[in-house]
């Protein structure tokens, strides 16, 4: 019987809603943030995860879950879960509560994930991308008629990037400030340096809460230096594992670590916008993340508007090359409502043994 460890690779759903009431009341401006906590719990129950820690600011609410993270903005929700959670089962209850309780209409949904380390351990509807796409097409409302599903390849068949999007308006119109180029960056790392991964194990016999042990890990590993402006909500799982959500104004970031040797995994995700010379933020973040995890393999997936995608892959590769990580593949594709997705994979320049 094949061994199956904890699956670190996450499934990610992003929902955008329209807030098109001509006379918005104060409540309506709050949109999804007005969701009753009982409704959120029901949505999470469908996915089999629970809230472990949470914090909010004037822009959004961030929840650390037993199996990853949830971000709630007025018109946008992002849920990211790992392990064997059935993330797609959140769609039906979420649409129900947002339509019936809040009068909000879903305008687009996107689903992304890497390749599972243990694909045979995934339950319905996640046993294959085909199954996921079928389930998505059967559950999303029919007004989201512009759809695309694609598996973006790398040189290795066990490292692909899966994307499904559906929208009612194919033009990239998510609310963003003109002249700013927003991006979402999703980094997936495996084969973490064992000594560095060891920092994400609880010390046996310590009586701290998961919250204060998490805070210690954040400081010990230097995660707090990735974005010094961000407020960090962190948690350390027993006996090992770590999650954090960062809040910097309206920008979120999130890190999840499965440190066990043999199937170690860490992810880093953030959003930002590229104004004129602010590209250094991406470079800085990539370098800090590599320093903290020293992964054996790393994939970087960036979603942004088409005008920027040519520069972005160069920026990512040039940030990582000096750290000894060579770009092994680069794939680019366009998706309705998302814009462009660039998917690159990296491995160290000199590998002792080629594995997988």
């Amino acid at each position, binding site marked *: 019987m094949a061994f199956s460890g904890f699956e670190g690779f996450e499934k990610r759903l992003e929902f955008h809603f329209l807030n098109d009431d001509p006379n918005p009341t*104060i409540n309506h401006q*709050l949109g999804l943030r007005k969701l009753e*906590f009982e409704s959120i719990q029901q949505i999470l129950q469908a996915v089999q995860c629970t809230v472990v820690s*949470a*914090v909010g600011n*004037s822009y959004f*609410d961030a*929840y650390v879950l037993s199996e990853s993270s949830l971000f*709630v903005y007025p018109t946008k929700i992002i849920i990211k879960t790992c392990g064997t959670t059935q993330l797609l089962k959140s769609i039906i209850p979420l649409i129900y509560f947002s339509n019936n309780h809040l009068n909000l209409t879903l305008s687009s949904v996107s689903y992304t994930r890497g390749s599972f380390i243990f694909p045979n351990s995934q339950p319905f509807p996640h046993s294959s991308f085909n199954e996921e796409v079928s389930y998505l097409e059967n559950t999303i409302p029919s007004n989201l008629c512009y759809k695309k599903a694609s598996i973006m390849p790398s040189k290795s068949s066990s490292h692909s990037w899966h994307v499904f999007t559906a929208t009612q308006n194919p033009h990239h119109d998510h609310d963003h400030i003109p002249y700013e180029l927003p991006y979402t960056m999703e980094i997936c790392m495996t084969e973490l340096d064992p000594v560095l991964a060891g920092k994400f194990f609880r010390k046996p016999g310590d009586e701290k809460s998961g*919250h204060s042990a998490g805070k210690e890990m954040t400081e010990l590993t230097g995660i707090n230096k990735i974005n010094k402006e961000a407020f960090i909500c962190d948690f350390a799982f027993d006996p090992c594992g770590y999650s954090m959500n960062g809040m910097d104004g309206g920008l979120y970031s999130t890190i999840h670590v499965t440190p066990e040797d043999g199937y170690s995994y860490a992810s880093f995700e953030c959003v930002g916008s590229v104004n004129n010379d602010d590209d250094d933020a991406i470079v800085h973040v990539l370098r800090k993340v590599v320093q903290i995890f020293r992964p054996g393999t790393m994939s970087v997936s960036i979603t942004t508007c088409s005008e920027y995608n040519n520069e972005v892959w160069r920026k990512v590769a040039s940030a990582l090359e000096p750290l000894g990580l060579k770009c092994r593949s680069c794939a680019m594709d366009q998706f309705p409502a998302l814009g462009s997705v660039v998917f690159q994979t990296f491995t160290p320049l000199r590998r002792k043994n080629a594995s997988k």
Partner: protein
Amino acid sequence: MGGWFSSQPLTESENSRVKIIHSLARWQLDFNEFKESQTLVVIDFSATWCGPCRFMEPILDAMSNEYTDVEFIKIDVDELSDVAKDLNVQAMPTFVLLKKGKEVDRVIGAKKDELQNKIREHRA
């Protein structure tokens, strides 16, 4: 902090010892009392538009009934924005622990275990 107003004021729930302060005058009176007393005071800074605050509400109510030697206060950051600003509240919920009018600790975020540990630590 954001310019949103609370859609309806925080209301006290039936089974809870958590006292809600709505006015600056009340806050000033109470704060003067705190300075004279050895009792641990836990202030929950919340906002009606913040999901994590709603998540913590029943938990705080239960804690107020368990730790009867501790004073539990709730303040809406939109109603008493000056108090929130003075105490440097930026993310919600923020729990500020006071003894004799001075801050001895704080918990930022809906962290049940962390808050419980700190209440136990400081209530003596």
